[in-house]
């Protein structure tokens, strides 16, 4: 069989975190009742005109700078004409031949190897409303409902070069892009709320060929995992077709998560001719360099720089630094802890271990964590002071996560303070030795392991509260 390689380009849409919509003053907040965040402008009433939200331009420039793009000096909006019920004006106000930014790149790292993925362009546009299909419910039968709350929420579209070769690269690119947009605080990038969306163009060709094969466009991939899986499926599908001698049809395909396959979308309609033309209701934009420099100055530390800093300043292993900086919120959490508790490695263990475990298990974002940096540090201090043991600390952490109480309160309430009183410990140890003469014997005859068992019995007796170091010492003395 011939060897093939895939050629993949991604088109990513990210909703910008502005307070108001791109062309009107309606709120962009997610989750409101349908059609409660609308006005004549975003409902496309006749006679209304768009008035551009300046922050949209600021955010677009910021994201573009973080993606190493050239910022245009002249840019304008265009109309993309097509009919769809969620599109109030019958056209989407977008950017066509003069996007705000072009020629950027993003560096991804896979198996320790760095690769640069080109970014063709970044442009601003408006989001459409939402269609609710009453599909599964046969009783309510044959119509759909339209909610225009999302219509007019600002978007940036980021189009990559066809530089991506594997589904894994695609996933890592998207993860990295998400991190950058979150770091620059231009977007929440919540895939489950639809504030980050991704389409892919994919084709295959014999390895070594420089010609592009016929591509298909993949839609409806709602998670990183879905993106990777859809691409894997589609690449195999295309290869199988070519092997059978069936040419690839240029079409739009949708990812069916349940079935785990891509399916062609109906293609009976006429090929899309969007009839782009300059938006006559808006004036063009001239972006002077001072404006760009001002925004450049405000750029925060980006993921790669931050990762390098964590390695350099705190001596973290690269793996730890990468995990922690993969999300800005997590990295902020980490930095805040390190600021008030000087043990970077211990913190990274807790953050990467316990914290992420509980967040993932509860499907929560770092921002929503009931345990704040000062709470974690409070716990670590109790442990360091010897008030609680390491084992108890994990138990307390779980409790903190569940109840939102701080460590000290929990330790007090549950009486989890470590027993470090020698007299008290000796009494317990005596009791354990009395009850386990065989083990005492074993240890004395040289079986080291017997000590572990005896210490374990003491911990059991004290419900884990005994200071393990002290217990060890006392045992060694007595035996």
């Amino acid at each position, binding site marked *: 069989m011939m060897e093939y390689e895939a050629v993949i380009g991604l088109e990513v849409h990210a909703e910008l975190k502005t307070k108001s919509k791109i062309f009107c003053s309606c709120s962009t907040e997610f989750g409101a009742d349908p059609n409660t965040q609308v006005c004549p402008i975003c409902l496309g009433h006749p006679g*209304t005109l768009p008035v551009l939200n300046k922050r949209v331009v600021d955010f677009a420039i910021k994201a573009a700078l973080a993606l190493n793009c050239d910022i245009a000096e002249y840019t304008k909006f265009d109309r993309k004409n097509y009919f769809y019920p969620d599109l109030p004006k019958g056209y989407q106000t977008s950017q066509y031949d003069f996007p705000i930014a072009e020629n950027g790149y993003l560096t991804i790292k896979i198996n320790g190897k760095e690769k640069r993925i080109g970014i063709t362009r970044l442009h601003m546009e408006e989001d459409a409303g939402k269609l609710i299909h009453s599909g599964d419910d046969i009783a309510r039968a044959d119509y759909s409902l339209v909610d225009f709350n999302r219509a007019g929420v600002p978007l940036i579209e980021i189009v990559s070069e066809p530089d991506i070769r594997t589904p894994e690269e695609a996933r890592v690119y998207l993860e990295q892009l998400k991190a950058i947009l979150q770091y620059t605080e231009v977007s929440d990038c919540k895939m489950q709320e639809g504030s980050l969306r991704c389409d892919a163009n994919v084709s295959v060709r014999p390895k070594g060929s420089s010609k592009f094969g016929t591509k298909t466009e993949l839609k409806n991939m709602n998670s990183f995992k879905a993106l990777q899986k859809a691409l894997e499926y589609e690449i195999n599908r295309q290869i199988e077709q070519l092997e059978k001698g069936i040419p690839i049809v240029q079409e739009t395909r949708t990812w069916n998560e349940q079935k785990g396959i891509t399916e062609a979308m109906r293609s009976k309609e006429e090929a899309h001719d969007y009839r782009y033309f300059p938006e006559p*209701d808006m004036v063009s934009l001239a972006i002077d360099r001072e404006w760009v420099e001002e925004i450049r100055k405000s750029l925060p530390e980006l993921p790669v720089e931050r990762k390098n800093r964590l390695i350099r300043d705190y001596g973290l292993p690269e793996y730890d630094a990468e995990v922690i900086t993969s999300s800005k919120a997590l990295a902020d959490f980490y930095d805040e802890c390190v600021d008030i508790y000087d043990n970077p490695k211990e913190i990274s263990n807790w953050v990467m271990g316990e914290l992420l475990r509980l967040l993932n298990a509860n499907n929560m974002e770092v921002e929503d964590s009931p345990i704040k940096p000062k709470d974690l540090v409070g716990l670590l201090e109790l442990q360091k002071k010897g008030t609680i043991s390491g084992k108890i600390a994990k138990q307390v952490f779980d409790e903190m996560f569940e109840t939102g109480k701080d460590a000290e309160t929990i330790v007090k309430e549950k009486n989890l303070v470590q027993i470090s009183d020698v007299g008290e410990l000796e009494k317990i140890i005596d009791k354990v030795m009395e009850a386990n003469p065989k083990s005492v014997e074993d240890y004395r005859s040289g079986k080291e392991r017997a000590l572990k068992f005896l210490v374990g019995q003491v911990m059991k007796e004290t419900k884990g509260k005994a200071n393990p170091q002290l217990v060890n010492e006392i045992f060694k003395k007595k035996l």
Partner: protein
Amino acid sequence: MEVTKMKAHEIHEMLKKGDIGVRELTEVFLDRIEKIDDKIKAYITVNREKALEQADRVDAGIRKEENTDVLAGIPMALKDNICTKDINTTCSSKMLHNYKPPYNATVVEKLEEKGAVMLGKLNLDEFAMGSSTENSWFFTTRNPWDLERVPGGSSGGSAAAVAAGEAVYSLGSDTGGSIRQPAAFCGVVGLKPTYGRVSRNGLVAFASSLDQIGPITKDVKDCALVFQAITGFDPKDTTSVNTPVPDYEKILDDNIKGLRIGIPKEYFREGISSEVKDRIREAIDVLERLGAICEETSLPHTEYALPAYYIISTAEAGSNLARFDGVRYGYRNMDAEDLISMYSTTRSEGFGPEVKRRIILGTYALSSGNYDTYYLKALKVRTLIKQDFDRAWEEFDVLVTPTTPTTAFKMGEKTKDPVSMYVSDLLTVPANMAGIPAITVPCGLIDGLPVGMQIMAKPFAEDVLLKTAYAYECHRGFEITAPELEVN
């Protein structure tokens, strides 16, 4: 004199002196509409109750001397493509026959603030596409000078209402001549302001880069007053311009000594009736006698303005009218079972033939493959037209031309041949293409039908336009008033 024949500034004096109250005045106009509008057919909606409420409010304000604005209490009416909150705004289309906008156009807000009394909404060619009001879904408006003839269009209702004394003044909109051509046909004054001078917020768009709202009035002074009231930057329209607005009334005087007037020869070619040319030449004589310096000039790309206009205006219109899909407002075919047929039946039934013709032309002009051949070319021609004018401003303060090639034509005369209808915009379209201001003033009659003289000036030079028109009007030596209708 009957108040229905009077100008706004004259009525203002009466109101000030207390010779008449706003309510009484409003009732006189409402009665006249009731009496004669079944002959003229200018009004789609008469706003009786709300007009009287507003009249009472303004009466109180005038009595307490809180409202001294010259437009306070003056009854006026609006072209029905200007949005009025909770009052039907139909664009003379079945598509919007029941549409009640949830907001007011900026010009409506501005006039309301001054205490204007809005009598109702006036007929137009559907979505302002046409030159005769014959494209209205409701009915055709008649020319008060001859009921067998059209009032012009698309602001035919606006011009006819003013000429027939059914409103003191009105607002129209002008995309390719839609204020000036009907004003000329009906013997009244009409101004298309500089693009960007008046907010388009609330004007149902036909062609966004060409549309402007402007006044239609009985004389130039009223024109200046109404223009003053509606002009200025509007944060809701980012294509409106933030430049100082002069006091237009103050600058009105009849001294135009030394004014440099260009007479572009392309506006006097074949297709322009020789009698129309005669009236314009007589008017130019008046201006010369007042000390203006008149000279022939050339705007060489004039003949390309109209074809380029038809590409640009329809391309924009095709897109602007895409929002009429039966989802959020307006007409909808309720029987359609799938999405595509809901769209196509709603739109096919909701739009009239001329609107559909232009949507198809505009869609065609923007289709891939045609963009460069038609749309892009038209944009380039637009540059050439603008450059023609820019060169003219180096030598002249204003340009004077006929407003229309002929006087008002008979109903049905041009409905069969779209191109012949389009050609009636020949002389007005270039000003829209270049974004410059242009005014039409009545300058005589031919066989009992009025003729309009068009004056154009450089962007934002409405002051020069108004002054020139005012000087001419003061010295032309005759009044032009539509004959009184016979009412039984």
